[in-house]
């Protein structure tokens, strides 16, 4: 059992949404919320179609960089962003 899987179970037990850093690779996830105090980040993500109700897939983890698929496009996002996207 992978760490991500345990984490997911743990977090869902506590009722907390988890973020993209804890996602399983290749698993289609629905975004629950974008948690950030930076309105610029929220707006930018919005314009890419990354907001609550839409889907996101984690494709790979490269060190502190996460490659994700959002509305048919690949993006590289940093850990800070990945943590803001709750699924």
């Amino acid at each position, binding site marked *: 059992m992978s760490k991500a899987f345990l984490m997911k179970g743990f977090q869902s037990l506590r009722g907390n949404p988890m973020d993209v850093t804890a996602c399983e690779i*290749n698993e*289609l996830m629905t975004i629950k919320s974008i948690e950030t105090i*930076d*309105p*610029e*980040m929220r*707006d*930018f*993500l*919005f*314009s*890419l*179609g990354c*907001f609550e*109700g*839409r889907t996101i*897939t984690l*494709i*790979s983890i*490269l*060190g*502190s*960089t996460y*490659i994700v*698929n*959002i*509305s*048919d*496009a*690949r*993006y*590289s*996002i*940093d850990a*800070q*962003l990945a943590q*803001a996207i709750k699924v």
Partner: protein
Amino acid sequence: MRIALAGNPNSGKTTLFNAITGSIESVGNWPGVTVARKEGEVKRNLYKKNEAIRIIDLPGTYSMSPFTLEERITRDFVRNESPDVIINIIDANNLSRSLVYTTQLLELGVPVVVALNKWDTVKQKQTDINTETLSKQLNCPVIPISAIQNQGLRILIETCYQIKGKKQIAPYRCMIVENVEHVAESDKKRFEFVSAIVTEAEKRKVTSDKQTIHDTIDRIVANRYLGMPIFAIILYAVFSISQSTIGPWIADYMVAGIDSLYVFAESAMSEAVSPLLKTLLLDGIIGGVGAIVGFLPLIMVLFFMLALLEDSGYMARVAVVMDPIMKKVGLSGRSIIPMVISTGCAIPGIMSTRTIKNERERRTTAMLTSFMPCGAKLPVIALFAGVFFQEAAWVGTLMYFLGILVIIFGAYVIRKINNDTSKKSFFIMELPEYRWPSVKRAFTSMINQGKAFVTKAVTIILISNVVVQIMQTFTWQFQLVEEGLEATSILANISSPIAFAMIPLGFGIWQLTAAAVTGFIAKENVVGTLAVVFGITNFINTEELILVSGSIEVAGIFGLTSVAALAYLVFNLFTPPCFAAIGAMNAELESKKWLIGSIAFQLGMGYVLAYLIYQIGTFATTGQLGSGAFAGLFTVLVLIGIVLLIITKNSVETTLKVQ
């Protein structure tokens, strides 16, 4: 008729613009290449009407939502300049995101035609897109095109004519505009609306969330540990091909040509031609300009290789690899794109910092990006690598990495000076798919850059060389400088005091100083001036040099050790780039304080680096310090002291403010 090109970043707007106007604006396989609008005229063979069509290429934007303030260029353009038609370019591989912007454009009240670009790749991927359904649902014409293969362009222009002046009814309207909350709500519905259209019109063979070969390559080239070494190897390969193998091989032929031109011109001028005019023409013009043009093949091969890399999609990954390092000094991966562009020319590089939103990050990048060796610096690198280091490819590679290191260090210092401890900014970048780079496109890009290089050589550089030649030929009394009394020339007189300050750096010779100073006008001048002051035309082939200049090897003429030569090279590369780049910096920094700070910082950086290389290198090779070690140390310490002083002063001020 006026047509505006609007669409998401990297959708191919500039490629289309170039294809229908015949322009040569720069294209790159990453988002954010175009930063200012460009205008052009549509080629006559694309339409029959007897009317000029102007077309405007706009920077790419993901959306037009009223709350993304920075991305309003398109909106403002459409509002203020009312084009007759908007061509909305869409990457057909990404309908679900692109069409959202389309629905926004359709609300503006200007007729829109959708160009489904990259149709060639859609066919390859066996995705099935029903353009009729799209057209019906969006209520506007939808034309599949391939900007890269010149397909569908005629129909596109034809359609523009047909819809000009027609009314289109937007399929989706945002009703409430006053309240930001409601707009957000409405835009969410907009995405749903688009998803429904896409589901109906598009049948994908493979859904986009499946792992592909591109993801596998990413895991290797953008790997946490392998990323940097791979980048280093690629740069080294690019250099060894352009500087040590193919480049010099072609250059040899070309230089032979320039030499025969020199000999021909010399013999063609009769005895009647005044010796003054003769040297001006031969040494000043043919010699100086020829010395630079001789490096053209090396530079073109390098540009060719860089264009291949850009086209492949690799450069976007370099930004990903560098992001964690850049974050440590308060920048992000976004600063890499200006640096990549600066390897061609610093001016567009500095301009491209506009896409960076955070002000300090933007200014820091604009101020530092010109430390990357640009095309004009290459002849200088190639000259010194060739003469002092047997054309070693490591010299060029080292200069690029030194450039990156200096930028990282510079960003660190600037952050300290600004005493900015604010949160790190976030980094997100769309990753284009990899593809086989096109030799044809790289060739075109190489020819364009080569042309620009030659144009510059026969204008600014030619004039500079003539001026240098005149200043070297006359004394202040406008008497010809006598043989053996070269130090009495105007040039020598002006340069000598500055040369004095260069002694601790290992090159306190007025000729070298003069070359470095003319380099501030344009970097190619360094080579041109060296050619003029030392009377050498052929820098490429040092064996032939003996024949041409009738003297010992160039290294001997310069009177430099290898270490001093490296110091001189570094000084030229890491001091302010050129007037034009400083102008661009002035425009982007929008602050006199930052501009003056930048120039001072660059001068100091070049000086300190050259000092360290010369003194440490000399000590390592000979066991003794170089000349002027202590005077230089004093200067270096003063420079460092000033920076430390500013840092402490600013941090105390902030602490006081907080209290």
